[in-house]
């Protein structure tokens, strides 16, 4: 099926969404996403940041779609023409969505562990206005611990529902969900309960903001002062393919590896994430690829050689990948 996005034509298989087609073309035309997550079924459609204008429905029926559509949940038709970055209305509407998402957000980036790798920060920077016009008190919730390792900071939540879908699709006993409705809706367990499950830690990785954070990493370091390296281990529960966030010789945090869309390549288990905090637990592959525009890459690799030497020293094990071959 042929689809044209911002003037660029691409051939995609039937069933591809506009968003996936745009991602195939590249980040320049791919709409931003806050709730869509390609590996989580039925995700997407809620945040409305990825809305685009379909100016031609298909070759067979060229009428434009009357309203902007969520590109993550709309499948392409043969001959469809889509406008994203070149359409003023789309950009204006997106600006509106950013304002809505930020309306009740505390903007506590200076004390938020997610700062530096926060989708909402990126979105606000790229698509939002400099100032909010919202003058009323923001909604506030108590912070709650859900389990030993995860903290829920509902004030920051933008209701993307990804964490609920993780619990539904990756674990067999969902104990948290969406309570209440409208702008009073919240992510909660309702009764005193803990999310104890071998894959529950993935809610941290899918959270686009700092609503769900890793308690073992809490206030340890700004993310841009840490150095991400890709590592593996022989894990019986998951693929063991992780990203270590290191400061000097210490592993401050373990996460899944994220692709350029900010999505986990493979979900990892809680043992890998929370309990393997020594370098000796891991075989290091080499520095992670971080997008140049990310703040995380700002501090990186100035002392790449020192890092390498350090890692080499610590890794007594034989046969790990030659990190010089990594880009």
């Amino acid at each position, binding site marked *: 099926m042929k689809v044209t996005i911002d003037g660029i034509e691409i051939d995609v298989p039937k069933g591809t969404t506009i968003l996936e087609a745009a991602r195939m073309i590249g980040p320049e035309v791919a709409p931003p996403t806050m709730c869509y997550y390609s590996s989580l079924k039925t995700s997407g459609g809620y*945040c*409305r940041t990825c809305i685009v204008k379909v100016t031609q429905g298909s070759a067979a029926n060229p009428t434009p779609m009357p309203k902007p559509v969520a590109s993550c949940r709309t499948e392409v038709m043969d001959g469809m023409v889509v406008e994203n970055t070149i359409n003023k209305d789309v950009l204006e509407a997106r600006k509106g969505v950013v304002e809505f998402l930020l309306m009740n957000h505390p903007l506590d980036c200076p004390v938020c562990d997610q700062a530096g790798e926060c989708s909402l920060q990126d979105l606000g920077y790229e698509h939002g206005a400099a100032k909010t016009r919202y003058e009323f008190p923001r909604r506030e919730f108590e912070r709650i611990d859900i389990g030993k390792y995860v903290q829920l900071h509902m004030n920051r939540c933008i209701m993307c529902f990804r964490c609920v879908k993780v619990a539904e699709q990756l674990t067999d006993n969902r104990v948290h969900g969406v309570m209440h409705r409208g702008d009073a809706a919240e992510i909660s367990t309702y009764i005193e309960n803990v999310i104890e499950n071998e894959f529950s830690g993935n809610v941290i990785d899918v959270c686009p903001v700092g609503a769900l954070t890793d308690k073992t990493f809490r206030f340890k370091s700004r993310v841009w002062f840490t150095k991400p390296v890709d590592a593996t281990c022989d894990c019986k529960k998951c693929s063991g393919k992780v990203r270590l966030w290191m400061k000097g010789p210490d592993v401050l945090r373990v996460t899944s590896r994220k692709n350029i869309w900010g999505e986990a390549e493979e979900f990892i288990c809680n043992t890998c994430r929370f309990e393997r905090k020594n370098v000796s637990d891991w075989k290091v592959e080499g520095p992670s690829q971080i997008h140049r525009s990310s703040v995380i890459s700002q501090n990186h690799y100035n002392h790449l050689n020192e890092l390498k030497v350090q890692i080499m020293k610590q890794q007594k094990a034989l046969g790990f990948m030659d990190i010089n071959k990594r880009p």
Partner: protein
Amino acid sequence: MGRKLLIHNDHVPNIHTLEVYRAHGGYASVEKALKTMQPDQITDEVKTSGLRGRGGAGFPTGMKWSFLAKPEGVPRYLVCNADESEPGTFKDRYLMEKIPHALIEGMITSSYALGAKTSYIYIRGEYFYVARIVEAAIAEAYAAGWLGKNILGTDFSHDCYVQVGGGAYICGEETALLESLEGKRGNPRIKPPFPAVAGLWGCPTVVNNVETIAAVVPIVNMGGEEYAKIGVGKSTGTKLISASGHINKPGVYEIELGITVEDFIYSDEYCGGIRNGKKLKAVVAGGSSVPILPTELILKTAKGEPRLMTYESLADGGFQTGTMLGSGGFIAMDEDTSIVKNLFTFARFYHHESCGQCSPCREGTGWMEKILQKFLNGTANESDVELLWDIQSKIEGKTICPLGEAAAWPVAAAIRHFKHEFLEIAKNKKFVDISHYDRLNLVRA
């Protein structure tokens, strides 16, 4: 007197019982359909009749039915949308309460047309007592063989159940209704797929409003062609209008589509004019979601033609000078009414009813309510009018379901036609509610 097809017997004592309903010609459409018609013939009659969905959207019913997927071995469902919650609308309640068998008869005939072996009537939870009345009527229908196995000795068997909701306007949106019927939160689904392909429990489903289903009865009885003769142009048949506000005779009226709005408001057959000798100021013609119009535009179109109670005439002029027939929730306001305050009650309503799934509606509805509250507190600035306008424009058309539009349109229309009222409050930093005589009414009655 206009012709009535749905509630012509509402004055008959005990018309809610099967015995009386039957004595007045009830269930004739089931007999005619099951014994003399093929299912597709009924769909054709409905198409010919020009019947349009009476819930608010006005989508042609026959066309909706013809979209229903019919894969082998998969059950199909008919679901009646009795989640009537649009402010200003109470016609379905009236119909179900007075003549419950009219709905059940329509359910059976329609289900036969659609090949649905099971149907559900989803009634809003607040109408619990109405659900009891409908349930009692269903029990009567089972006992008399109108429901159950091999109805009238034919191959057609049908079960019909009532489900009550839990209190949520959004469940009037058909996919939210289906979610709710499945025992979930009333979150509208992302479409496609549409219910005609994947509806209740993933099976092909038709969701129709109470009045739409009830209208199938006269259509089958008199034939689609006869039905289409009533009304004007593409607005065929009769429509139940819920009339409320500052009129002398509030209530549910069945009108032939095509009477003039002026006639509807002022004639003794219908609303009987404005209460206490006051002048009409504005009308919300089709339930809270549709644009409010000032007197001069509701009585006459921008071209100066008399405005008619039809889908087309009310929409004449687009949103600049027109409105919509919607669900037929007709709210009239007299000269003392504050448009700003009335709008506030609408904004509060939509804020309260937003499901919270998508961000423009979740956040925007509350924001609009808060700004309108500023007007009522006398703390609003003139720039707040522009802000309100901008917010509604950023909600409209950007949401998963039509609640976004429903929340945005009334705000846009109030500003479009009554901007001076907003500016006056902002300028004087004071809000004075002069709609005072209601208070006397509370004591006097």
